[in-house]
């Protein structure tokens, strides 16, 4: 507690100008943060406002090939199509991605080859998504392998897009598995492959799941790789060898429609898509947090 007040010469405050600047600049930074949050708020607001009203039983159980007048149809084929296509890409991207990450961590830590691979993976993350579509178009569609447009080809394009995400997140997680664990298993006489499958992968499991969920969330939202690979199909099909619908491509199409009812459907579909993506994101984060607590 102060005994008495001394003249300012002994413990002067800093200049008012400096205090003012500090206050203003920190305030500006806070303001910028608020500004950064506004678009998210606005997007969610309008999604709910214009999209929630579209949700109904009919919305999810009819296909978007309704009549010219009246109800234009729901999003059933788009939703199911998305789930199928992304499901297939996951089946492709996860093993390959985790496999590459395993290579980088278990076998290639210091080699130049591994460094090169890592570099190329980084390059892949920067490739615009539409180029993946173009690539698959050239390699699979133009060459007429198994017909022209097909759902599985779109799935491959998505898998290419998801691959670097899976590799990078898996690599981080696998690196976190302590070497002491590996050494303990090896010292017990276990061969390398057993160490990988019985020790490393299970330990890294939750983290791998998190990374995969995030990659899936990303894949669900992509439109461009699907544009020239799955073709536009509004009817419901289950066959992956045929053109198929998907949520993002359906929304993309609907946006440019002159019919208000179709645009409304786009809002409902967009809300559905965002909810799906958010669910994956939230589950991924919860899984990450849970694994960190063990």
């Amino acid at each position, binding site marked *: *507690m102060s005994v008495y007040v001394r003249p300012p010469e002994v413990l002067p*405050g800093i200049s008012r100008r400096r205090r003012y600047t500090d206050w203003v600049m920190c305030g500006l930074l806070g303001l910028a943060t608020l500004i950064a949050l506004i678009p998210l708020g606005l997007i969610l607001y309008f999604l709910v406002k214009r999209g929630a009203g579209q949700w109904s039983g009919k919305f999810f159980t009819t296909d978007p090939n309704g009549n010219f007048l009246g109800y234009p149809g729901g999003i059933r084929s788009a939703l199911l199509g998305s789930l199928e296509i992304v499901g297939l890409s996951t089946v492709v991207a996860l093993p390959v991605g985790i496999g590459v990450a395993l290579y980088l961590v278990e076998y290639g830590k210091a080699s130049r080859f591994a460094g090169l691979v890592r570099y190329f993976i980084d390059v892949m993350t920067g490739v615009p998504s539409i180029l993946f579509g173009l690539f698959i178009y050239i390699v699979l569609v133009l060459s007429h392998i198994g017909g022209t447009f097909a759902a599985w080809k779109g799935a491959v394009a998505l898998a290419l897009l998801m691959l670097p995400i899976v590799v990078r997140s898996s690599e981080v997680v696998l690196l976190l598995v302590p070497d002491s664990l590996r050494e303990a298993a090896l010292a017990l006489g276990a061969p390398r492959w057993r160490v990988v499958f019985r020790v490393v992968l299970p330990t890294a499991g939750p983290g791998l799941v998190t990374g995969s969920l995030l990659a899936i969330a990303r894949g669900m939202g992509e439109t461009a790789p699907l544009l020239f690979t799955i073709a536009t199909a509004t009817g419901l099909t289950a066959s992956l060898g045929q053109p198929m619908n998907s949520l993002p491509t359906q929304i993309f199409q609907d946006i440019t429609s002159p019919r208000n009812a179709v645009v409304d459907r786009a809002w409902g579909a967009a809300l559905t898509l965002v909810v799906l993506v958010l669910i994956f994101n939230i589950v991924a984060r919860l899984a990450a947090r849970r694994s960190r607590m063990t």
Partner: protein
Amino acid sequence: MISPEATSKEQTEMSTGGGSAEQTQTVPGGDAAAPDASGQGISVSDLHAYYGQREAIRGLSLDFAANQVTAIIGPSGCGKSTLVRCINRMHEEIPGARAEGSVFLDNQDIYADRIDVTAVRRLIGMVFQKPNPFPTMSIFDNVAAGLRLTGTKGPDLRERVNDALQSVGLWDEVQDRLTAPGIGLSGGQQQRLCIARTIAVAPEVILMDEPCSALDPVATLKIEELMDQLKERYTIVIVTHNMQQAARVSDTTAFMLDGQLVEHAPTNDIFTKPSDERTERYVTGKFG
């Protein structure tokens, strides 16, 4: 406490060393309270410091005499670094850490409610264990860093930077490469650079937290000689785990154990005839 009348005009930094100050009416040569460039004493009173729930300093009271070198010794974890960090109110920068009690700088409690922390730190400088010149700044800019904050400019700035560099004995070594990066210097030179940076803003007190532990013996010696010169103008507090160093440089020594002060006495007495048994065991190397 800064009185309301005083804040009605622009509050500005004032150097107590008789150097220039911007935008004030200070008469060069000093102001009323600090007639010349000499340091003020520090008086710690019933200090308690916490890291979260853990109490690291438990009711410590200690006086640091003006213009003297006081060494703080004690085993690892006794709270010596925490203590000095409480003196310039850096302790509270650690998340979850807080301090209670009083620390008087010339009868002003720096823990009083309306005290401006940044002002305290300008008056109580700190030199850290690991030399930490700003990596992106030149030698000149490093020393000038604190001065620029208070608006010192131009020839005035240059003069004070040169003074500081001369005071630490670096001037001869760096005068022709002031624009070279600060981190290009050797460890000992970097630490002297940091000391120059600290004294450039003309503090009252200089706190040194194990300043030589990262340096070689030659550099250490230079800094110890420097301390002897600096004490004429500043009050110096040095934390050290090296008892020989404490014996060499300090006028008085304080021995801490478990967050409390055990004994504080003239250095000679502490090392030759300590009054507390624990001090005696520590300085004779029986523990620590």
